[in-house]
């Protein structure tokens, strides 16, 4: 039998009906995550057609995208400031109640960014198919699941049938070898990978991140990597489950327990791609040569090492348009450029290790005058852990703004925005025009680089502070 990739194994195990030239596969979905922004139209379709959610037990809802991060609006008596967002929150509350779906409501201790809470609960498990009406669903591939973003119509399909119609994607091996240097993080690695393969290099593929560098990463680092697969155009990214995965999951509330745990681990150990399995494409990355990375343009592939200059591509209209938006010029150095806002959070870098990294830089230091440092934990659990570990005290002492969990300034739906023309160093995933607010200029970087830039009020190499 030919050697199979991990993707192939997970895909085949979920084929209810295999694809034919005329029809896509009917693919079974193990876990459906939903949130307030992309679910209302799907629930409305169900209601209009007299349908029910087929498997509420495989459906989990949270509030994250448009929810406020201010404590008064979540826990106080202050109403949600953005009216339309308040309506989305109420709509999901009503839909969850009407259709019997479990919802982590606004004041629930388990609430948070959808891609942070599901792993945290142990609901995300190896070998599963996981979907959500959000492109960063690729995050869950860090556990060896096949996880991808879908549109609202497909959210409705999963509600009604627990299945999706899918064509089988191709496979792409991203082989990463070597040890990351001091101060170089998983975020820098994924930015470098996107810089290398380009923002459409992964279109039509599922990426599998492999090699010694990936094996050495923690689960939270692996989630940062898989999270940004979509920024390379790939709907999904996967990492083979191993002991790191199993020790992360062990004992989590929704992970299997007792004999079921042993059985699951034995099954999960068989998921990795077999030796000699063929991929449709591949790239080799030398991680040992990497430096902290930062974006200079308006897509995540426009990225350079922190000490490097912006490439001069005077004859490239794409680059020129991006630089004009950013107010930069080819040949300028990134280091030392002024910063107005720093955002640490999101499904990319809003987990405890990310906050620990930020605290390592901010401990005993102050945020530069005139800079707004917003730190938004990825979930209420991350918030509690950060507070218990004294991280929140470090942040507050440094002058940072410490909030309740949510997507917040990653996409600025909830009122947490960057003003027109301002520069924001952000640990999130997209530096598109206007992503963080109309006219906002986003520079994507690691939590180390973001925190160091907040301290100096300009783009800074974090390594001297570590």
């Amino acid at each position, binding site marked *: 039998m030919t050697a199979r990739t991990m993707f192939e194994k997970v895909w085949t195990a979920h084929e209810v009906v295999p694809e034919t030239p005329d029809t896509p596969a009917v693919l079974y979905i193990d876990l459906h995550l939903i949130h307030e922004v992309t679910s209302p139209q799907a629930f409305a379709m169900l209601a209009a057609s007299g349908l029910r959610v087929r498997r509420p037990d495989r459906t989990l809802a949270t509030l994250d995208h448009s929810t406020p991060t201010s404590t008064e609006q979540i826990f106080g008596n202050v109403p949600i400031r953005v009216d*339309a967002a308040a309506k989305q929150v109420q709509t999901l509350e009503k839909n969850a109640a009407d259709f019997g779906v479990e919802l982590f409501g606004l004041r629930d201790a388990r609430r948070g960014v959808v891609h942070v809470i599901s792993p945290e609960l142990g609901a995300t498990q190896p070998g599963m198919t996981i979907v959500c009406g959000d492109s960063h669903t690729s995050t869950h591939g860090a556990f060896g699941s096949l996880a991808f973003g*879908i*549109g*609202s119509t*497909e959210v409705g399909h999963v509600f009604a*049938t627990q299945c999706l119609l899918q064509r089988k994607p191709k496979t792409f091996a991203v082989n990463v070898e070597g040890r990351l240097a001091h101060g170089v993080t998983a975020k820098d690695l994924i930015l470098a990978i996107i810089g290398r393969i380009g*923002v459409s290099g992964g279109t039509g593929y599922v990426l599998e991140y492999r090699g010694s560098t990936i094996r050495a990463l923690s689960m939270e680092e692996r989630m940062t990597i898989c999270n940004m697969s979509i920024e390379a155009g790939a709907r999904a990214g996967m990492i083979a489950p191993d002991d790191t995965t199993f020790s992360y999951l062990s004992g989590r509330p929704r992970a299997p327990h007792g004999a079921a745990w042993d059985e699951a681990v034995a099954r999960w150990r068989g998921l990795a791609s077999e030796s000699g399995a063929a991929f449709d494409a591949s790239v080799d990355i030398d991680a040992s040569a990497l430096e902290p990375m930062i974006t200079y343009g308006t897509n995540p592939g426009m990225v350079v090492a922190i000490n490097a200059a912006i490439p001069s591509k005077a004859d490239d209209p794409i680059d020129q348009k991006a630089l004009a938006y950013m107010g930069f010029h080819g040949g300028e150095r990134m280091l030392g450029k002024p910063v107005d806002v720093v955002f640490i959070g999101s499904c990319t870098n809003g987990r405890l290790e990310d906050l620990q990294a930020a605290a390592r830089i901010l401990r005993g230091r102050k945020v530069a005058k005139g800079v707004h440092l917003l730190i938004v934990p990825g979930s209420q659990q991350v918030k509690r852990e950060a507070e218990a570990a004294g991280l929140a005290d470090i942040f507050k002492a440094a002058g940072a703004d410490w909030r309740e969990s949510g997507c917040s300034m990653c996409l600025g739906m909830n009122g947490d925005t960057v003003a027109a023309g301002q520069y924001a160093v952000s640990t999130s995933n997209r530096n598109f*025009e206007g992503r963080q607010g109309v006219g906002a200029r986003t520079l994507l970087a690691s939590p180390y680089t973001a925190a160091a830039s907040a301290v100096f009020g300009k783009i800074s190499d974090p390594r001297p502070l570590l």
Partner: protein
Amino acid sequence: MEPITTLHSTTVVLASTNIDTDQIIPARFLTVTTKLGLGKSLFADWRYLSDGRPNPDFVLNQPAAAGSRILVAGHNFGCGSSREHAPWALVDYGFRAVVSTAIADIFSSNALKNGLLPIVVDSATHGWLLEHPGAAVTVDLAACRLLLPTGASVSFPIEAFARHCLLHGLDDLGYLQSKLDAITRYESARGG
């Protein structure tokens, strides 16, 4: 959904590459609970000046763009967020096809579910279309061909089942529901 067999229209050209779904419809317009009326927010940050007036330099605000149903866009159109609000906004505005050299996976899937044809063509054809904004072209979905006023006829790939649904005005949920017995058997075989 209305069946689509052929589409005849002049084109509008937005040559920028990597037009992401945040440009197609910025996130601040996603605080809705229906899919209606999003056309007014299409390309909002390019289409309107900061005081809300139409930006006269933007192509959709120019008289030649009126009534066009086919958008010709740069490479990698629709990248980024999975928001279906992007095709909803394009369709509500009046577009029925997007032509590019590459269209992002999730956008493409969402577009097909809303009667918006994602048409990927070779770079020579794309180059011609970029250089001839307003060209009157025909999309023949049954034959999977794009016909240019030069007489050229260019084939384009489109997923067979989505094409079948579009040609006959079918909703693919109906097909999924026809497999419910198989789905139940699959669930039973796996123990739930």
